[in-house]
Every structure is written in C-alpha cells, then in structure tokens.
C-alpha cells in the first residue's frame, strides 16, 4: 500500500535539470531541477503564476526552456517535437475533438501511430471498458457529462500506453462531489496501469490526497519536494506550512538544542520544547513553530490546577517542565466556527496571537463546548509541532 522510493537519484524516468523559462522580464521558471520516478504519482503544487503549468508545457514540448535540460530515460527530449514525445497530456477542458465520436477520439493516437485497423477497434473497446463507458463509443463528446468527458480524455491519453501522463488541473471543472469520486478513480487507475502521472494543481487538498510525492512551487522555484505526510508534518518553510493545510505559526528564537530536541523561546509566551527534529538549528536564530490546529488540545482553564497562576503572569517562562513534555498556555475564545463534524475555536493567547484549534464534535447533542470569551487552556505535546527558520 505504502509507496516507498529507493534510489531516487539513479535512473529516474524524467529528469529536469536546471530548467529556466523567462517571458520578457517575468521569470516563470528559475533553474528548476526535479527527478520523477517510473510509476510515481507526482504533483506540482503551487498558487497560480508559480510556474507549474509552464513546467508542464515544457515537459509536453509545447514550449522550449531558455536554459537547462529535460531528460526522459536519460535522453534529452528538448529537441523532440511534442508529437514525437512518448507522453500525453490531459487538458483542463479535456480538448476532446467535437467532430469525432468518442471511439474516434480514443482511436486518434492509435491512428497517428499507424496501428492496424483491427487492432485499433479492439484497443478502443478495451479502453472504453477500462473507463467503464463501454456503450458510449458512438456518441459525440457534446452528449457526455463532465465526468464522462474526463474519463474519455483519460482513455484517449492512455490508449497507446505513454511513458508519462501529464494532467493539467483536470478536475477543476468538476463539482466538489464528482471531483472527490474522480480523485479516487485516478488513484485506482494509476495504481492499476502503473504509468507515471505528473499532476498540476493549485488545490493542496487534492495534492495531498492523490500524490506519492509533491513538489511545492512558488515564483518559478521548487520550494520543497516530499511525500504528502512529510510535507504536512515537516514543512520546510513558512510558505509550505502556510500553503499546505491550515497552520498556526508562532514566532520565536532558538535558545538551545539537545540532540533532536530544541528549546524555543516563543515571543511573549515563554519557552517550549520541540522534539523529533532532524536538523541542527543555530542557537539564537529566528524561527517559527508550526502547529496544526488538530494537534492542539483545548480545555477549560479551571480544569488544570495552577492554571490561574500562568494566566496572571503571562511572561513567566515556566511551562517547560510541566506535564511530561506538554506545553500549556492560557487564553480566551476569540471566535468560533461550527462546521458540523468539528468546531474551530480561535483562541487569543497572552501575547495577542490568535491560535486556531479544532475540537471534534464527538459527543452527540453537545455542539459547543466553549463560548466566545471563555477562559481556556491550549496545550500541545513537544512532538506536535515543527520548526521552520526565517
């Protein structure tokens, strides 16, 4: 089930080496390098204008880089025109040929490759089976729904077994429910056929759900490449922490490091432990503690003995030693959002920072545990957060 990658640098299917692309003065891609493995579901994620679509068009061959190289199976494909590259693209609007039937659309790449007529017929029928639309062959694309068009576009792109499939925000035109269903179908399909997918999206949720690995891009550069859970749990920068999921960022300063455990002095709050860190942090450097809302515990302040003391002296740097590696801070509920399954409580801490916390509405009937203005205590264990340097 879990996808494990070994030998990442050796024999990658697709290598992107120092690729740059400029449009006049605008830098769309700035020395981007990537290795994509055979069989991988790889996602390029970033806000609009980050260069992800530019990179996809370079891989497809619709555009030429200003510098760098793109290697497929170790061979440069820069000089190869798009029609001769063994990879296909799923376009955002599907780009089905309106004057051809579904079967003729799927047959198109086979005809281009001059496959024999009988073979085309059987392979088109198989492809239609694969996307579970066996009786749509004689219809025109206009007669199909959005999801069906999507499936036909996928069938057409996969029918002659490309080495790589490039997908340019293929689900953005679908409504939320259908999108979720298509995400599951895409995962299953990719697993079944084992063809490498390079997927472009600005939707971080989609990226986390689908990908084996994600490259987060911003302003034409790759910010971080990692597996979804690591990207979420160990963001490498403020940008990644903020872009992937919801995240609280508490500013502070590194005051001490013992092995994997770092002591951080949070501005206006006091010192906390952060454990499970893999890198060395220079003492005195500015940093931010990243805390996901669901990793923070929220409780009534009166429930904890001695909590009133902390409340009266917010600058007291004492919470370190208390409660086996957990950090506790007092605050009050600033506002809340009832979302059905969970309630979001925004808690104002002593230093004025707003901390977003989640509380699952597990008890039936009870919806709001706290009211706006309630004095509460927030707590997190020392391995709940991660440090990013400024």
């Amino acid at each position: 089930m879990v996808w494990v990658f070994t030998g990442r640098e050796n024999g990658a299917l697709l290598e992107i080496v120092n690729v740059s692309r400029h449009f006049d003065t605008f830098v769309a891609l700035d020395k981007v390098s990537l290795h994509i493995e055979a069989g991988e579901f790889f996602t390029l994620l970033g806000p609009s204008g980050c260069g992800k679509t530019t990179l996809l068009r370079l891989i497809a061959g619709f555009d030429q880089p200003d510098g760098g190289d793109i290697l497929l199976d170790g061979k440069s494909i820069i000089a190869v025109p798009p029609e001769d590259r063994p990879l296909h693209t799923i376009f955002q609007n599907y780009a089905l040929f309106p004057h051809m039937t579904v079967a003729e659309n799927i047959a198109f790449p086979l005809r281009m490759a001059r496959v024999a007529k009988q073979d085309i017929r059987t392979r088109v029928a198989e492809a239609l089976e694969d996307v579970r639309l066996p009786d749509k062959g004689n219809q025109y694309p206009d007669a199909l729904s959005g999801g069906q068009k999507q499936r036909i576009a996928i069938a057409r792109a996969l029918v002659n077994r490309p080495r790589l499939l490039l997908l340019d925000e293929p689900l953005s035109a679908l409504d939320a429910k259908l999108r979720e269903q298509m995400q599951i179908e895409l995962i299953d399909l990719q697993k079944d056929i084992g063809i490498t997918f390079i997927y472009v999206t600005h939707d971080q949720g989609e990226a986390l759900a689908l990908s084996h690995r994600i490259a987060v891009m911003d302003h034409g550069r790759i910010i971080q490449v990692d597996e979804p859970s690591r990207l979420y749990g160990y963001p490498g920068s403020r940008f990644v922490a903020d872009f992937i999921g919801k995240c609280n960022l508490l500013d502070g300063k590194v005051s001490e490091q013992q092995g994997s455990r770092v002591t951080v002095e949070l501005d206006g709050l006091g010192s906390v432990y952060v454990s499970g860190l893999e890198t060395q942090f220079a003492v005195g450097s500015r940093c931010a503690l990243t805390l996901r809302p669901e990793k923070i515990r929220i409780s009534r302040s009166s429930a904890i003995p001695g909590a009133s003391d902390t409340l009266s002296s917010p600058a007291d740097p004492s919470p370190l030693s208390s409660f086996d590696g957990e950090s506790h801070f007092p605050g009050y509920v600033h506002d809340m959002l009832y979302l059905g399954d969970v309630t979001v409580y925004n808690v104002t801490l002593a230093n004025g920072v707003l901390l977003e916390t989640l509380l699952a509405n597990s008890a039936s009937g009870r919806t709001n545990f706290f009211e706006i203005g309630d004095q509460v205590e927030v707590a997190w264990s020392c391995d709940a957060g991660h440090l990013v340097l400024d």
Partner: protein
Amino acid sequence: MLKTVQGKAWSKYLLSLPPMAYLLIFFAAPTLIMLFSSFRYPGEYGGLAPWLVQDGGQWTFDLTLESWQRLFGTDIYLRLFVKSIGYAICTTLFCMVMAYPLALMIARSGRKSRDLLLLLVILPFWSNFLVRIYAWMIIFSPVGALTRILNGVLDLFGVGPVTLMYSPTAMIVCLVYVHLPFMVLPLYANLEKHDPYLLDAAQDLGAGKWRRFWLITWPLSLPGITAGSILVFIPVLGMFAIPDLLGGTDGIMIGNVIKQQFMESRDWPFGSVLSMVLTVAAVAVVLLGSRLSRQRAGMSGS
C-alpha cells in the same frame, strides 16, 4: 399561468411579424409574380400583355407556355447556364483557396493586428463596386503597364502577344477580387472560434502539422466554407455587371441574358423564365450546401 404563456407566444409572433411581412411583400410575392409572368405574353412595347382578355363578351385567360418552350427548344440557354455555373464554381474555388490561408492567418494573429487585418479585408467596400471594376479595366487595358510587361516577357520566349481585357481570365480575376471578402469573413468567423487546445491535444497525441490541419482544423471549418461558398457562388451565378464590362462577347453569362430580355429585347416573360431557373438553381445550391456541411459535421476523418 396559461395566460402569460399564451401572451409570450403572441409577442413572439408579433416580433417576427415585420420581417415576415417584409419577406412576403418583397420576396415571396415578387417571385410568384415572376413565375406567373413567365406564362404570359410580352406586351407590344415591352412589359406584359394582359392575362385576362375579353373575347366576344367572354373573359378568357391569355396564357402561354411559349417562353418555357423557347428555353427548352434550344441548347443555347442550357449552355449559358452551364457556363455561368462553371464561372461560379471557378470563382468559388479560387476564393476558397485564397481566402483560407488568409482567414487562418488573421484568426491566429494577435488581437491588435487581427482588427487591422479585418479592416483591410473590408476596405474595398468603401469604394463603389463599379468604380473598382473600372479600375480593373484600366489595369487590363491593352495599353496598360501590366499587358505591356506581360507581352514583353512573353516575346522573349517567342510567344505572341495576348490581350487581358475581354477575356475569361479578366472575368475570373475580377469576380474573385470582388467576392473574396465574402469568403474570408465567414471563414474567419468560424476559424476564430476554434479551441486552440484541440490542436495542442492533436499534436500531443502524435499528429504532425499536416494531420493537425486535415484532421482537426479542416473538418471543423466546413460550416464556414459552406457559408462562404454560398455567399460567393450565388451572386456570381447571377452576375451581369462584370461580364458586361470585362467579358467581351465570349464572356456573356446568364445574368446578361436576363438583363437583355428585360431591357433591350423587351421580352419580360422569357426574362422571367430565365430568372425562375436561376432562382431554382440558387435554392438548390443552398440546400445542397447545408446538407453537405451537416453530413460532414457528423462525419469522422476516417
């Protein structure tokens, strides 16, 4: 509820009333009058003879098939029709071949230059049709620079001098010149709407330049070609001004004969016969064209 629905239906009829009335009065009625005229006798000094005459106290219809018999009695008119259709087909084909690359180029150029290029296409409409034909007469004149240079070059190869004026060549050149915008504009309107991603997709799926054109752009542009062809073919079929001015004696087309019947020969009934045949031919072409484009639209490239 029902009342408002009915009210809406009524307003729909009301809206279409003016154009309907216009077409009835100025198209359907004249066509029927023309059809009726083709069965009447010509008047002594032009016009038409009365169709209801009093013959010894009795009113009788005075109608005849003479004009229709005249049409089918000789092959002169049939050959003229065939020749006119030939000119119309030639003009349409030349227009198509010349307009397609132009329309494609305009449709794929930047937004700014696109407007300028379209303006240039319709620029000839700013001057009068006849004035533009007179301009061609000057160009084709035997003492004009074009004819002299051409004959000078031909002389080098030992070929005798040619005259451009009053020749089928001159007619075709001028017919194409006049009707080219009518082919360019509908073609452009069609090509401009093509989704550029379709070409990207075709290329991505392995189609080279030519296959992208023949399998994607060409079939999708057939409605534009049909519209343009109808807009060129039908006016050329009935054209009389260009053959009159540039065609000489050999260049005569059916339009000239019709004009002749109504003007010089003062034979309105026979003019009506020829006009009816021309109208039927034009309608047939439109029906054929729309049917062809509908079939093609649903047809594959295979």
